[in-house]
């Protein structure tokens, strides 16, 4: 009796429909979650659809690439522009390649493009996605509704280019904060970061820092929209309350974030410098980069915030205090455009149709004459000029050739200085040989040799050159009628490409290569002086200084092995070089 009565009491509200339906919180939350779920659908769809592509694409993790693409677009979103189409594809390609390194670059490109275009949804008219979900209310019962959203949208740039921007939906999907306030989410991410740094978990700290950056971008985007709208129409933006509040809030926020991030930066820098493990050191360094980028974005945001007030006042002056109205007119925006936008599209179409009919003016109807028509139809099609109009031949005036040395002289000097790597020569010998052919040539040879005293090793390495002309001063005074200074040793140094084993060309003793490092270089002058009389004097020493000279600039360029990237080939000691006797003879 008691039990059943109790059961009945408890059971009554549970009968469906008996109690008033509690619309509101749960139902709203459900719709929100359904929409959030829908936003991830295009990514799942990527995975599902890859099987339909012509070709074997199942090796690629498409959802991962999709998220990476959204990531790339979000990070490059700035105040003025978004990410460039091609740039995103280019930056996505290495990620694609990493997933299937044995496939060709053309396929990687195709996959990157496919992922990007799928995220834009190029095939559809709206270039967006649509999901259907249902809501249930007491009044209307169950209603199916369309939810339209975009992940990446294409927006026009100032000069007509098309840029990609990640939508709010995409940013939310990406960071996984589906229904949170911008500011509070940022604070939360920040606290988390500090916590993580204290505990030394840098990998997670980095994730949190990246999240903070996405939030910052989103924040800046809100402001950018408001400012842009103000420029168009002051009245379209609420400058009485909403925007000043936004600016105040954002300024406070920037000030706070700036302090905060500088503190974080100091912490991470310390972590970076103190970290022992190279992996930790590297991730801390990356984190420093990210936080620096955050600070840069904050500074940018702050600059915009400072400009916002003057911009508003200028626009207000321009738009509101212009000429006095002469007669009341129609407020096209307030009385026509906005009410139309609020209407259901079926009704709104009636208004726009009327406006179109009355607002497009007139077109004079075309009357066709049979005579013209036949002529028109019988005229052969005009050959489209594929390359455009003919380019007029420019009237060129020959500029006087004021170069000091002729082309032939340059060639001769180059031929003279084209020394085999194992046979460096004295400058004095080269000068004498040059003088024998052309009295002017020694100057050019001397200039080139002086140039070679400070060879552009970094440039040569970047260009992938395999050899480089180097000149070493070993202290010998040049004895020449025209040119004074040191009698340089001029030789060709072979450059080993990065990662290549040293001494590829080493025909001589292998132990000479490691021994060529700085110490050997300082010995050169003494050594060479001591052994001058024997014929093999310059060649044994040349590799040392050459390696030293070249190795020094190569180091900052990121070559991991100091002095190893550039390796002069040591000649076989004692073997007389073919041109050495000539040098001796010339000097005599």
């Amino acid at each position, binding site marked *: 009796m008691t039990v059943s009565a109790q059961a009945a009491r408890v059971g009554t509200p549970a009968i469906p429909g008996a109690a008033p339906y509690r619309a509101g919180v749960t139902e709203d939350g459900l719709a929100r979650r359904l929409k959030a779920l829908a936003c991830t659908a295009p990514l799942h769809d990527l995975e599902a659809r890859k099987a339909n592509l012509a070709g074997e694409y199942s090796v690629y993790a498409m959802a991962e690439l999709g998220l990476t693409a959204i990531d790339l677009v979000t990070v490059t979103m700035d105040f003025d522009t978004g990410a460039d189409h091609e740039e995103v594809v280019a930056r996505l390609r290495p990620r694609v390649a990493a997933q299937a390194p044995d496939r060709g670059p053309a396929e990687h490109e195709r996959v990157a493009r496919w992922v990007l275009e799928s995220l834009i949804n190029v095939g559809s008219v709206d270039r967006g996605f649509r999901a259907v979900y249902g809501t249930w209310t007491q009044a209307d019962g169950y209603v199916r509704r369309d939810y339209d959203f975009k992940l990446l949208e294409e927006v026009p740039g100032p000069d007509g280019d098309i840029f990609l921007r990640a939508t709010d939906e995409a940013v939310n999907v990406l960071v996984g904060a589906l229904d949170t306030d911008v500011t509070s989410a940022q604070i939360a991410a920040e606290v988390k970061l500090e916590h993580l740094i204290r505990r030394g978990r840098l990998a997670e700290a980095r994730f949190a820092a990246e999240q903070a950056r996405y939030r910052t971008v989103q924040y800046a985007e809100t402001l950018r929209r408001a400012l842009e709208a103000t420029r168009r129409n002051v009245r379209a933006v609420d400058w009485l309350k909403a925007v000043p509040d936004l600016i105040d809030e954002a300024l406070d926020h920037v000030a706070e974030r700036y302090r905060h991030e500088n503190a974080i930066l100091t912490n991470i820098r310390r972590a970076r410098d103190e970290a022992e493990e190279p992996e930790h050191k590297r991730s801390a360094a990356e984190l420093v980069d990210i936080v620096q980028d955050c600070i840069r974005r904050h500074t940018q945001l702050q600059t915009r915030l400072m400009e916002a007030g003057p911009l508003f006042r200028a626009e207000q002056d321009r738009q509101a205090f212009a000429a006095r109205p002469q007669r009341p007119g129609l407020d096209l925006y307030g009385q026509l455009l906005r009410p139309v936008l609020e209407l259901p599209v079926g009704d709104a179409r009636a208004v726009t149709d009327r406006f179109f009919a009355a607002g497009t*003016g007139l077109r004079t109807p075309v009357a066709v004459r049979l005579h013209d028509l036949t002529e028109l139809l019988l005229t052969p099609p005009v050959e489209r000029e594929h390359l455009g109009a003919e380019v007029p031949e420019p009237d060129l005036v020959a500029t006087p050739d004021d170069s000091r040395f002729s082309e032939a002289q340059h060639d001769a000097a180059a031929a003279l200085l084209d020394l085999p790597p194992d046979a460096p020569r004295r400058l004095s010998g080269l000068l004498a040989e040059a003088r024998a052919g052309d009295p002017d040539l020694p100057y050019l040879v001397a200039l080139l040799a002086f140039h070679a005293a400070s060879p552009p090793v970094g440039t040569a390495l970047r260009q992938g050159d395999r050899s480089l002309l180097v000149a070493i001063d070993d202290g010998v005074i040049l004895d020449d009628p025209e040119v004074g200074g040191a009698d340089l040793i001029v030789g060709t140094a072979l450059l080993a490409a990065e990662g290549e084993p040293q001494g590829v060309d080493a025909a001589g003793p292998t132990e000479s290569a490691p021994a060529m490092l700085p110490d050997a270089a300082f010995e050169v002058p003494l050594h060479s002086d001591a052994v001058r009389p024997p014929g093999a004097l310059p060649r044994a020493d040349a590799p040392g200084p050459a390696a030293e000279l070249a190795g020094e600039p190569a180091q900052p360029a990121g070559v991991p092995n100091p002095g190893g990237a550039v390796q002069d080939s040591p000649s076989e000691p004692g073997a007389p070089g073919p041109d050495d006797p000539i040098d001796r003879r010339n000097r005599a």
Partner: protein
Amino acid sequence: MTDPSSSSTSFPGQDRHASPGGSPAAAPITSADVSDAARLVAFGLQPKLLPARDAEYAELVRRHREDPRFASLCDAVAAGLGLVVLEVSPRAGMAVTAAEDSVFAVRMSDYARRASTESADRFLHGLAHLAIAALAFPRPEDLAEDSYVGRISVHGVDAFVRQACRRLEERAEQSGENIDPAVDAPGLEAAWRVYARRSATGATKDARRLSASTVGIVGKAVAFLVDSGFLQRVSDEAGGTYRTTARYQLQVRDMAGSAAMSELLELGVVPVSDGSATLVPPTDDAGELVPGAGLPFHGV
């Protein structure tokens, strides 16, 4: 605007074509007069031609302003052809536009192929024209002031409408109503949603504008208005920047604006100037605005 009645009372003696001592109505109309009147209407049918560029046109416009008999003859010719005269003046020339159902009227189906089948596209094309006008004459004074020259750009118009849509979206979110339309009733979807969800632009294979995108639709509308002599191209900035002509102001003020307003009123929407979310209080009063007040008074 010319007012034939005022010119006839002000300069009765200057009417060279009036018979001596008699009223103007009594003078016989020669076929040469009719030919001249038709010639002036023909000039008016070339919207890009201005009296300042053509001596004969300028002379006919002058005659129209000074000779009320000739003016009414021109108006009669125009009306017979199915044209409405908006203004005859040196700045705008013979500004005529097509009356409803006239052979000169532009039909939406001729304008855009998709518009005849896709109701959303039809709406967007119409809205583009409305938005261009709204941005060309942003304040009521601009539309009323004869000397005002508006400037618009294709990207500007698109951004302007998007901003308006965004505000409506924010408002709908604040009020907490569910803005997603029911699946089986697409006509009940809020108009701003149709615009907002259409892509702004898009890359195409041949590097042209995506015609179905909103920038493409606005660009088409702008190009069409240039052909109608309503806009003049200024530069290529922001997808093409244009300035308005006197004819466009007349067309919007006297034809399109009021026609759309009356349609809106028929739908039961009485737009009151909204001061709640705008900083500048509305300078005009909705009560002063009588539908049809701006209609051309060169009635026949």
